[in-house]
Structures are given as C-alpha cells and as structure tokens.
C-alpha cells in the first residue's frame, strides 16, 4: 500500500525531510518502523529509541501496535510539549 509518512521535531531533523511517500506491506506501525529503519542510517538513527517515539495514524494518536489497514498517513514525533 501507499502511505504518506510525516516526521516532526527532531525526528524530522534526523531523517532530513518532513515527509515521504512510501510503498509498504507493513501490517502495523511497528512493522512500518522496521521497514523505515532499514532504509538508511538516518532513518535507523531516528528510530533507534522507540521509547522516545510517538505516532499518529490518520491524525489520531495511536500505539506502535496499531494496525495500518486502510491508513493513508502515519506521523512520527517525540513526546509532545505543547501548552
């Protein structure tokens, strides 16, 4: 399937781009991360500590074990610091 993958804050900086469109067979967010981390050193560095990574699937906060069936956009970012 085709997914838009978005990065924010230091994940965006480590990966070097704010978004990319990818083809993947990943069934869950965690499988998607494995796919992405295998791409190059920048992706691998961004995903080296999953305790520091949060995600949203189609703009809803989601667990790393969330399924991706039907998803169009997945975003990765560090813990939020609003307010």
């Amino acid at each position, binding site marked *: 399937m085709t997914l838009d993958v978005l990065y*924010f*804050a230091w994940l965006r900086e480590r990966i070097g781009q704010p978004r990319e469109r990818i083809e993947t067979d990943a069934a869950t967010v965690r499988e998607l991360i494995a796919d992405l981390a295998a791409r190059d050193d920048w992706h691998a560095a961004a995903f080296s500590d999953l*305790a520091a990574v*949060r995600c949203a699937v189609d703009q809803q906060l*989601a*667990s790393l074990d969330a399924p991706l069936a039907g998803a169009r956009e997945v975003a990765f970012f560090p*813990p939020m*610091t*609003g307010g």
Partner: protein
Amino acid sequence: MSARVQTAPFDLAAELAGFGAGAGAVVTFTGIVRDDTGQMAALEIEHYPAMTERALSDYGAQAAARFGLTDWRILHRHGRLAVGEPIMMVATAARHRAAAFQAADYLMDWLKSRAPFWKREIGHDGAARWVEAKSSDEDALSRWQASSLPKYPFPAPADDPA
C-alpha cells in the same frame, strides 16, 4: 466553543469578548514565554497542521461534556515567539467555579502532553534545543484517567533530568 491555531500574537481581552455569557464562573489560563536562564532569544513551536485543530477541538468537547461547561475556548500559537509573548490560552465557563477551574486544569494537562506541538528554545547564540517532555506532565494527565476517557497507549516518558 472553539479551538484555533495561529502564528500571530493574541490579546486575552479581545479573545474573551462575549465569552461565557450566562455562566457564573469563568477561568482563564495564559501561558507566556519565559526565559529561566537568560540565554533564550526566542521559542519556536512546530505543530502538525492536519491534526492540531481537530485534536484541540476534541479535547475541548471532552472537557465540556465531563465538566458541564457552558463555553470553552482554546488558542495556541506556533512559529517563532519572543520572550514575554503569550503562547496559548484556555478559557472555560461553567455555572459553578469548581467545574470551571477543573476543566481549565484538565485542558492544560491534555495540551501539555497530547496536543501535537513541539517547542524548541533558540539561544542568543543561535543554538536550538528541543524542549523535552516532563514526566510530571504525564503524571498530571494521569490524574484524570480514572474516567472513561481513552488512555493514551504509550508509556510515560522517562524521568525529566531537570
């Protein structure tokens, strides 16, 4: 009952015009850029445009249902902010003061840890440093979780070294 994201500064007074008509109690919270170290030139706030306003609206609606608010307003800035400028505001209106206070506190806890904003401090020397999430913010949020609200599925961030 509205949530808004913008880069421009805002004026609390103007935002509150007509707010809370018919309520008995109005509480407002305003967050202001603070420089604790004397090193900070500005604060930069990044957000997730496709998600932000919807997330804020969801949190506002949840607070309204939970605390019986008669009105609420959330405003959050992004982009580059100078020290002393307002970052965001929350206003809640209810018949009684306890509900208005609790709802404002509740919304702040959600905004701190669940709204898609990321702060970066810019030093006078141009160096940038991402602000780390505080475990105390996560703890604060957990106060409200005994409710039927969905618990965010991640573990709390590691202890804040600060």
